[in-house]
């Protein structure tokens, strides 16, 4: 991508320092002290706040007693992506936010870090905690290899299903591999988790696009049930002039480059604007700063109060000295010789709240101004993979492009189940895991019924 001006390259040490683990793993002593602080609540609020219902006090007490392997088993039994979740969950809005220590006026127990401590313990030592169940003769396909599919596949494999994952990407792991800031997890971290699922006998078929490389008809013939966990697709366009200039890209594409390329090879402007104020936007602006961009703007048409990024994420960007342009709407991307040179913006005021209670931004007349940038990253949300989903026979889509599924995650076509972002429209990794596991239960229940019926007929 030819940019007008690129950020100066850093030394290898500087890159590693910039992207160093944001919540470094605990050592044994830290884990012992922190785990001892846990009150071991009964019917604990942290567990209730976890979408995957991890028995948090149960695993923390196991860490305290030195039964770290048992702690990991408790975590991974409920959530096979316990490692990623320990690193990327917005814990302050989930388990740690509900921790009774908050009401006690003390620091919440560092549940996320303790979780990671326990899971790292078994991953580092290649300890196998789970095994494939005795084969039950049933075959299930999972489309997509992100958190929802991995969770669904692992749960089914443990019950004895033969599971195959189909994924169009080169590497497995979906968002865990490609879509999370490098200072939270690296590709290698995600792949270690994938290995756990592989160890259960799950077959991964990467670079295979269902509907193109293999037909739905063939899938339906070969598999007793099919789980759709394809997540979301590309970043939405902003529909403003200049989006086709060199130097404009989507947030997911940008983050993916920071994950799969060596840091010095990631093309980065000296000055960057990121449009949007969600958690993904934070991943973009912090990565941009850490890659050496000198000036990074976060441009948002509403105010700080409306930003959807978690406070913790907002704080990260502030610490990275990102410049926040609140109530600022981009109207045109400016270019010269095909490369981005700036963004023309207009100030907004917030009008009356809309149906969802969000105040609509309205442009302030005569308030146009220009920011001088070499690169623009759109972080205004991801599109559903509508073309793919429309091709799945018999499934129903909502207006926003998400899949309609029942409480057992079964779709309009009984053979298809679905979960994760392609159903919920975009949520946390832990939600995708919870839905993948729920779908596995749904599949097991449905196939169990049909299996039972078949046996009765015989």
């Amino acid at each position, binding site marked *: 991508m030819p940019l007008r001006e690129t950020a100066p390259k850093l030394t290898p040490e500087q890159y590693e320092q910039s992207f160093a683990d944001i919540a470094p793993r605990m050592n044994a002593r830290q884990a012992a002290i922190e785990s001892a602080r846990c009150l071991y609540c009964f019917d604990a609020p942290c567990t209730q706040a976890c979408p995957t219902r991890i028995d948090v006090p149960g695993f923390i007490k196991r860490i305290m007693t030195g039964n770290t392997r048992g702690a990991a088993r408790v975590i991974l039994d409920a959530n096979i992506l316990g490692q990623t979740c320990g690193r990327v969950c917005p814990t302050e809005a989930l388990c740690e936010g*509900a921790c009774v220590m908050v*009401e*006690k006026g003390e620091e919440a127990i560092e549940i996320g870090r303790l979780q990671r401590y326990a899971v790292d313990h078994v991953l580092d030592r290649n300890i196998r905690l789970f095994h494939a169940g005795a084969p039950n003769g049933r075959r299930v396909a999972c489309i997509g290899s992100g958190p929802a599919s991995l969770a669904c596949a692992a749960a089914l494999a443990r019950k004895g299903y033969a599971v195959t994952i189909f994924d169009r990407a080169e590497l497995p792991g979906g968002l865990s591999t490609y879509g999370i800031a490098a200072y939270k997890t690296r590709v290698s971290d995600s792949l270690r988790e994938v290995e756990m699922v592989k160890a259960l006998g799950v077959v991964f078929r990467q670079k295979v696009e269902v509907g193109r490389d293999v037909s739905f008809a063939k899938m339906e013939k070969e598999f007793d049930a099919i789980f759709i966990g394809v997540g979301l697709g590309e970043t939405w366009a902003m529909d403003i002039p200049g989006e086709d200039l060199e130097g404009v890209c989507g947030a997911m594409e940008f983050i993916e480059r920071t994950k799969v390329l060596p840091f010095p090879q990631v093309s980065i402007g000296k000055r960057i604007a990121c449009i949007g104020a969600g958690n993904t936007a934070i991943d973009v602006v912090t990565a941009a700063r850490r890659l050496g961009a000198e000036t990074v703007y976060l441009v948002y048409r509403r105010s700080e109060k409306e930003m959807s990024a978690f406070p913790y994420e907002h704080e990260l960007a502030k610490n990275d000295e990102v410049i926040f342009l609140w109530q600022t709407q981009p109207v045109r991307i400016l270019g010269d010789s095909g490369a981005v040179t700036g963004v023309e913006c207009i100030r907004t005021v917030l009008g009356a709240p809309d149906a969802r209670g969000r105040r609509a931004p309205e442009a302030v007349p005569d308030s146009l101004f220009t920011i001088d940038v070499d690169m623009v990253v759109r972080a205004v949300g991801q599109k559903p993979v509508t073309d793919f989903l429309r091709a799945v026979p018999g499934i129903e889509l909502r207006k926003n492009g998400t899949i309609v599924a029942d409480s057992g995650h079964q779709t309009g076509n009984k053979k298809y189940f679905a979960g994760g972002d392609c159903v919920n429209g975009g949520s946390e990794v832990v939600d995708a895991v919870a839905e993948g596991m729920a779908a596995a239960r749904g599949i097991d229940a449905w196939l169990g019924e049909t299996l039972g019926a078949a046996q009765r007929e015989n």
Partner: protein
Amino acid sequence: MADLRVKFCGIESPNPFWLASGPPTNTAGQVMRAFDAGWGGAVWKTIGERITNTSSRYGGIDYNGAKMMGFNNIELISDRPPEDNFREIAEVKKRYPKNLVIASLMVESKRETWHEFVRRAEDAGADALELNFGCPHGMSERGMGSSVGQVPEYTEMIAGWAKEAAKTPVIVKLTPNVTDVTRVAQAAEKGGADAVSLINTVNSLMGVDLETFSGRPNVGGKSAHGGYCGPAIKPIALHMVSSVAKAVKIPIAGIGGVGYWNDAAEHIALGASVVQVCTAAMHYGFRIVEDMIDGMSAYMDDHGFRSIEDFRGRAVPNIRDWGDLDLNYKIVADIRRDLCIGCQLCYVACEDGAHQCIEPYAAAGNGKKNSNGMGVHVPRIIVDECVGCNLCALVCPVEECISMKEIDEGKPFESWKMRAARQ
């Protein structure tokens, strides 16, 4: 300002805080530094015929991150020649005439040997003598220490031998490793002892290394039982001090689990005139006495006690037989909703471990939220079912959240003894 000076069998101590016989009182250098820090007296590391110690010697029990909640040792008496110890006692007394140096003695059970060591200690200038009939480990295998203290007759006899030669007060140090400590205390009194000190350490094994299956402390893969002490043993000590306070007329030096001024005050309230401290000084050094002096003075000032005697033994009449307790006294638990953090430890403790008198949050139907807007599940006491056992208040991690409220049911005092007498 409260007067902390204490008279203890005729000798005056600047304050009731003494170092107990043990590693902190092994040398003149330590004892003098202790006196500089503020300790009123020091019972010298037990002197006797020279022994050899093992390595290692100590073991600790940590609890929930707190170090050395319990401590034990398999160290024997002083491994220095008696003449060195006596020479150093003389040196310390010369430089610190106002502080008390008590010579702790343990020798073979021969009248002449006891006479000899009593004389040598007094010649060195010791203010008093403490006969170590308490150590449960090592020396007991050689017929000394708790081997003596576990037999009232031996205790009486050897206390008598010491008294035959002694001009200074004789204190008998008692072992808790007996069925009834009062019998031994009475034997010491009968033998002529001027005071008793208790408790010595509790017989113990600190643990097992689950990899090597050696015990702790580990001496080349083997271990032996030792003496347990530290904060963990205070309740045992308080019970024994209060029992002895009722059983003998001679003064008591309270020992066991004293780390802070309030521990000392409890010993004193149960009848001790002075306290002796070892483990806490081994953990934190001699400086701990500064707050002992300061805190005790403040406590006494706050309560109008001008001297230790003003509150010494004040709690003793309140320690009774179970049969004297009021069966009609009733309390029930009360949870403060504003303080409750929703851990539900009270609920599970009562439900599984006590009397099923607490309902979990769901049944109580409350809507308390924390600052993050997340639910705080306040359980509810079933008042009619509550037996007033204290368990919920004990497990509650929040100060003052659960309290036990007295319920006046208008019933007269009735003890089990009264009820039994009527039937």
